[in-house]
């Protein structure tokens, strides 16, 4: 754990030698995708589920659209085996981000955006076990999220600062969890939470930009936190998520990230995960 922190600090300190990057893997930057462009994304998460000892996986297909220079919209689907023995479609969601401030300078910019997310999910709040099966350990989880666990809405503010070679981004948001399609949130879960993050990104390659065909290599470190604010299910955690990103032909993105808990007192069925994401962008869909 200490080593990861040291590596993170070294990367932050060495920011002066690389160009900044803000295509964060586990959060969104305040910048939007270009107007009139379309992005297609498939995110896959792999994690160990403490209650069953099984490997869990989640698949999130996502379509992103730059409606205009200030507004972008995402539509997402969620599928996983977290709550039942095999992978099934759990629901879907929408995400909208509006960039309301943009101060661009030669080697710096500061941007702010507001976002909202909404999810409709059909999942139980306690995992179903196959007939005759039983959990290895009690299902001890007080963490809900809008990515498949529960229906609800989330909204917040993002601020991204590029200063010389360092790109920093922070998010502050609030979630209101709502009942799922068939199941109601049990009384021992918090219905409200606050999420916060701090992200930093660096371009490692290419050293000098010459063509759009050059493959980019970017490194990220992100701190991701959440606090359940209700008296029941109260708790917090802070995760760290280092990530590597490749960009091919200036249009296709491959993200690899590992996420693990640094500190926290929230009961979680999963406290570390791998993420693999492929994203392809089509610019200027309407000529």
């Amino acid at each position: 754990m200490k080593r990861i922190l040291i590596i993170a600090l070294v990367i932050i300190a060495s920011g002066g030698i690389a160009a900044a990057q803000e295509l964060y893997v586990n959060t969104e930057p305040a910048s939007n995708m270009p107007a009139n462009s379309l992005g297609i994304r498939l995110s896959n998460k792999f994690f160990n589920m403490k209650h069953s000892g099984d490997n869990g996986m989640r698949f999130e297909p996502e379509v992103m659209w730059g409606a205009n220079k200030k507004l972008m919209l995402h539509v997402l689907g969620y599928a996983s085996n977290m709550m039942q023995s095999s992978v099934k479609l759990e629901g879907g969601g929408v995400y909208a981000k509006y960039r309301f401030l943009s101060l661009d300078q030669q080697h710096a910019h500061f941007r702010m955006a507001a976002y909202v997310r909404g999810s409709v999910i059909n999942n139980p709040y306690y995992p179903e076990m196959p007939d005759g099966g039983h959990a290895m350990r009690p299902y001890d989880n007080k963490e809900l999220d809008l990515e498949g666990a529960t229906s609800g809405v989330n909204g917040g503010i993002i601020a991204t600062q590029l200063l010389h070679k360092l790109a920093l981004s922070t998010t502050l948001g609030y979630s209101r969890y709502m009942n799922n399609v068939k199941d109601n949130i049990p009384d021992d879960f918090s219905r409200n939470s606050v999420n916060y993050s701090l992200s930093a990104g660096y371009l490692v390659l290419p050293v000098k930009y010459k063509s759009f065909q050059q493959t980019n290599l970017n490194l990220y470190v992100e701190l991701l936190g959440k606090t359940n604010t209700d008296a029941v299910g109260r708790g917090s955690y802070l995760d760290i998520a280092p990530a590597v990103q490749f960009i091919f032909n200036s249009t296709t993105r491959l993200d690899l990230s590992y996420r693990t808990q640094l500190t926290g007192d929230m009961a979680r069925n999963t406290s570390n995960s791998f993420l693999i994401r492929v994203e392809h962008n089509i610019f200027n869909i309407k000529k």
Partner: protein
Amino acid sequence: MKIVSIILLALGISFGANAQFKKASVHATGLTCAMCSKATYEALESLPFVDKIDTDLDNTTFILTFKTGAPVSIDAIKDKVEDAGFSVGKLVMTANFDAVRVQNDAHVAFAGSTLHFMDVKNQVLSGDKDITVIDKDFVSAKQFKKFSTETTMPCYKTGMMGDCCKSDGATASKRIYHVTI
């Protein structure tokens, strides 16, 4: 016969090249990634008057070569950069002038646009000359503020024809591009 056709060709080219914008060098700010540059490139490429684009990616600069005879909209260039999510930090237009007399704070009708020359000596422009657009959103906010304090002309702040402009029969809502050499 060959000589005649060469002369005709030369004449044709010089007539064809008269009084028009030939190129633009667009420096975009706010870009940090390959995808950003690519998106900006493709947005600029979709302009109907752009023939080809050369890039200096390390400096996030795009050199647009215009189609001969096509009407060029300076605002459309800026709009494309902004649609891609970025800002114009500097825009230098290369134009072919045919003995055009310019004066400080005077309007010149040129290739379908009205140019207001600021901070220039009285002179006659001939041949290819570079002019820099200094209107709002074509320079950094800091530079715009600086230019604003250096001029008494209120039309600079709006980019539109104003009372300050020496009347040349144009209407008050006409777009005026403020430029310098």
